[in-house]
């Protein structure tokens, strides 16, 4: 089965758009509905669509790193954001905020969630989108 031209064209357009949109959702999650989980899922849908339109190998090239590394980095960011509180003598995961910049460890945590969800979904989608006979089975 050859994916249609329409799908291919749109996929090329939609990948950067969904990616930007996902970043906006991640940022918006700071104070309103949104956040790392929704953002990560959105980012993953873009790449998954690209994988359907072209091939898993092509989609893999769009990723900044191996899915496993993304998962590790995401979990690492989240755990790390919890440890920041240690230096302020607070309990694990207490939000430490910079009042002037309005930036704090929850943002770091959310970025971790974003990477983690993105990595997990990429691992999942790219495994399932492989057609029979494609590499790596």
């Amino acid at each position, binding site marked *: 089965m050859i994916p249609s031209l329409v799908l291919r064209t749109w996929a090329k357009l939609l990948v950067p758009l969904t990616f930007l949109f996902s970043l906006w959702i991640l940022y918006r999650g700071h104070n309103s509905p949104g956040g790392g989980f929704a953002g990560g899922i959105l980012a993953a849908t873009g790449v998954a669509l690209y994988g359907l339109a072209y091939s898993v190998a092509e989609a893999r090239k769009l990723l900044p790193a191996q899915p496993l590394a993304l998962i590790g980095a995401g*979990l690492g960011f989240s755990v790390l954001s919890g440890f920041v509180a240690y230096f302020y003598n607070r*309990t694990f995961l*207490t*939000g430490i905020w910079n009042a002037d910049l309005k930036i704090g460890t929850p943002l770091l945590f959310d970025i971790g969630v974003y990477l983690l969800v993105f990595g997990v979904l990429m691992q999942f989608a790219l495994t399932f989108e492989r057609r029979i006979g494609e590499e790596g089975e």
Partner: protein
Amino acid sequence: MTWLPVLPVVVPLAMAVFMALTTRFGSEHRVKGIIGGLLHATVSTLLFATVAHQGTIETRLGSFPRPFTIFFEATPASAGLVALMSWVVTAALVVATATMDRPRLRRGFHSIAQVVLAAASGALLSGDLFNLFVWFELMLTASFVLVTLGSTPAQLASGFKYLLISLMASVFFLCACGLAYGWYGNLDLAKIAELQSSFSGPGPNMIGGLALVALAIKSAMFPMYAWLPDAYTAPPPGIAALLAAVSTKVAAFALLRIGTALFPPAGGLWFDILVWAGAATTIAGALAAIAINDVRRRLAFLLASQMGTVLVAIGLQSASVVVLLIAHEMVAMAGLFFAVAALGRTGSSPVARLAVGGGFLVCALAVAGIPPTSGFVAKFAFVQAGLLAENPLAVGAVLLSSLLSLFALLQAWQSTAHESEKSGAKLGWTVPAVCAATAALTLAGGLLAGPAVSGLKETVQGEVLR
């Protein structure tokens, strides 16, 4: 100070992250895995030592106030179980590393094992119902991966069955959590236990029933234990030993805590059901074990049978006995699985064969409850509690099943002794050493238990139930 209860969860998670980030093609993470286990053991032993000295420590993640936070609570009982579990799991990691094939190690056995360790600690230490549910699910998710690691047809089929049954149980558990929140307006286990007495009507009974069914499935209660033998036989013995030390034990402890909070108090229907279903489990498991020839399947049924004893103790509402039984079974059953992992590989060295065979024998005696072992102490405390609760029938059932287990295990011992003679595959010194150490721990538990048990009784009875 408030960091300590979190560390047994965070340390293995950080270790898993470290492994994921340093994975290259063909990485096996042998050293990192065992170091991770040792780190966890150190941290949790430290936690236990602190808690045993100073009493319960609470930690509210993110410093949020009580109903909005993720809430950890290290009581002497839960911290002690975490510490014991982490040593047993570390031993299991050593055995698994030594006996498992390379492809399985390369597929990330050690990082998944760290996640299991983190999640099991979280489930044991968590202070509220939903937090418990989340850690429990995380632990199960990771153990599905372990059961199917390597993807042989038998593993996939048993893993899929295990997954489906557990998913159903999780749904019940989740419904119980949601309804409990709706009913009591609170998820804190200690708080619910307080509120319990002021409520009547069908609500508490229904919520309790849902939680009972969910955790009964997960701790392999009699009509619902069909998933267990396959899930513990299909994967390699190292993985089975790890799961035997963790998953059903955490389920039993969760059932103890949730039962005391959610079941309507004193003489309630759900406690009675636990007693009789537990008695049925322990007898049925032991009978099935005798009827089956394969050693590992036999052990899996014995594991179910042992869980039955714990369930009876939960039904009798004697928290200290439950904790004792869980602790003893964790070590003894793991010791049996270790010996089976070494089975047929002991090779030439007579010392290694002695260690493995002797380890099996000691742990078998412990499972049956014969004197110089930890099993005797646990069973003795159990019988005491059972007679105190005036339930001689349940006590009789458990004693009968002990006798049956002894028969099944001695038979297994005989056949394993033959098998290790005829096979010649080599095995290093590590696995026999672990077998010997586990057996020594069981013996020490039996010999030094007297003062420890009386101390435990005083602390646990108050602290588990709070």
